[in-house]
């Protein structure tokens, strides 16, 4: 039976190696002027960004497990956490811009140099941050990799550390309820878009082609982005409410599947090619039903955090 620190030791390679592979693919595709390969590399960025979420969360859980061990240096863990937080935010931004680039490609049938440039810059920053973070993570259990007397560099601005976010959320009574209001507005933006786009797929409205509905997807991405940021604020503020919470585990699992489902709508040719007055093929319908079911599941387990789990 695998425990959470073990899961972290496996997943922690994904953001670092995944980003390196995706950057390599992207640069290679530009060199070869191969649009298809460029799009694949952008999709890899999206998948790596998704998998950064469980890598980060399993790290928070591992940090809590390690706190009980006296031989571990808490300051090294805190630095590793801050590095992970900042590079995960960069990864999230990289994934978001990569997705926007894919979405924009659908609109104009060519890749925008602007998006590609931003992705290259962000991904290099992400890789730098992730590599530094990985080194700091290694030092937790392997102090021997540190040169004598040296400490790994931290590029951390002081306001963007786990502790400063925790203090911001817990020391101001207005922050938590404001995050809640934003999280619910993000929820309905996301779910409203998901319902309309996927009900088109299921045939409720067929008069317009799927491509017309595809234009709505950035609003789903905006809702998802708002909810990832607000949700991360809560996890950082009160990790003990989530890290041993079975509802949270299910919520995150379903969220990853739902995120992959969202990527299908932009990445694959099948949904895009559904024309006006055309019905969607069976596979697209299965994906549409599962999208709606998965997001309802995410909301269910979010709501159940205090009831099935131990939050609040």
């Amino acid at each position, binding site marked *: 039976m695998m425990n959470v620190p073990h899961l972290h030791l496996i997943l922690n390679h994904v953001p670092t190696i995944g980003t390196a592979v995706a950057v390599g693919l992207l640069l290679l595709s530009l060199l070869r002027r191969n649009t298809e390969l460029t799009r694949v590399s952008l999709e890899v960025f999206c998948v790596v960004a998704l998998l950064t979420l469980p890598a980060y969360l399993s790290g928070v859980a591992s940090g809590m497990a390690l706190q009980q061990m006296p031989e571990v240096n808490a300051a090294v863990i805190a630095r590793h956490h801050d590095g992970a937080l900042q590079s995960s935010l960069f990864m999230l931004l990289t994934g978001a811009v990569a997705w926007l680039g894919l979405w924009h490609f659908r609109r104009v049938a060519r890749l925008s140099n602007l998006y590609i440039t931003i992705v290259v810059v962000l991904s290099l920053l992400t890789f730098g941050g992730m590599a530094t973070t990985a080194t700091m993570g290694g030092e937790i259990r392997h102090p021997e990799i540190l040169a004598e007397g040296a400490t790994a560099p931290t590029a951390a601005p002081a306001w963007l550390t786990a502790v400063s976010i925790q203090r911001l959320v817990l020391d101001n009574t207005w922050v938590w309820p404001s995050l809640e209001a934003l999280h*619910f507005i993000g929820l309905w933006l996301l779910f409203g878009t998901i319902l309309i786009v996927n*009900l088109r797929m299921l045939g409720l409205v067929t008069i317009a082609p799927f491509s017309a509905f595809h234009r709505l997807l950035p609003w789903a991405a905006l809702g998802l982005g708002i909810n990832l940021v607000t949700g991360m604020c809560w996890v950082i503020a009160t990790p003990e409410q989530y890290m041993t919470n079975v509802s949270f585990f299910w919520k995150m699992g379903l969220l990853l599947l739902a995120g992959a489902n969202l990527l299908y709508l932009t990445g694959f040719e099948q949904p895009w090619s559904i024309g006006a007055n055309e019905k969607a093929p069976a596979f697209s319908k299965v994906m549409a039903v599962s999208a709606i079911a998965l997001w309802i599941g995410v*909301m269910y387990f979010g709501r159940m955090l205090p009831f099935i789990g131990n939050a609040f």
Partner: protein
Amino acid sequence: MDFIIRLQHTAVMDWFRESGSLVGYPAVLFLHTLGLAAVAGISAIINLRLLGVASRIPLAPLTRFFPIIWAGFWVSALSGTILLIADAEQKLRTPVFWVKMIFIVLALVNMQLLRRRVFADPQLDTQPLSSQARLLAATSLIFWVGATTAGRLMAYIGPVAGLSS
């Protein structure tokens, strides 16, 4: 209002609030969220469409989504009524509850105006949208943001039913 408060202290409501059963308070709270997500979510996207987003989607067929908005509304309204009864003494005295009710009434009136003045127009997709249609779309968005915010704040002002902390 005394009637609602008397209902709060019935055996059914005591069970609903305090049993800890997942089919009690938690299930109704979830249905309230699901209903909200459908009502406010679909309304918001239709409003954004009226404001010019995804303008290749024809407007007239979007009325097909209205029954889902109404289904979501009734799920929210029924579950909300149960949640209100369960915690009536507290909620009826909380100003933010009444603020939420005002926003919901405004949003419903707004939805009816959109239906009658904008979506009933047979030339909806052949002529440019009136400024009145855009205004109604903007106010609808504001009302749903207001109702959601007020609804969330209710959980932080005064003690919360269903949570034994």
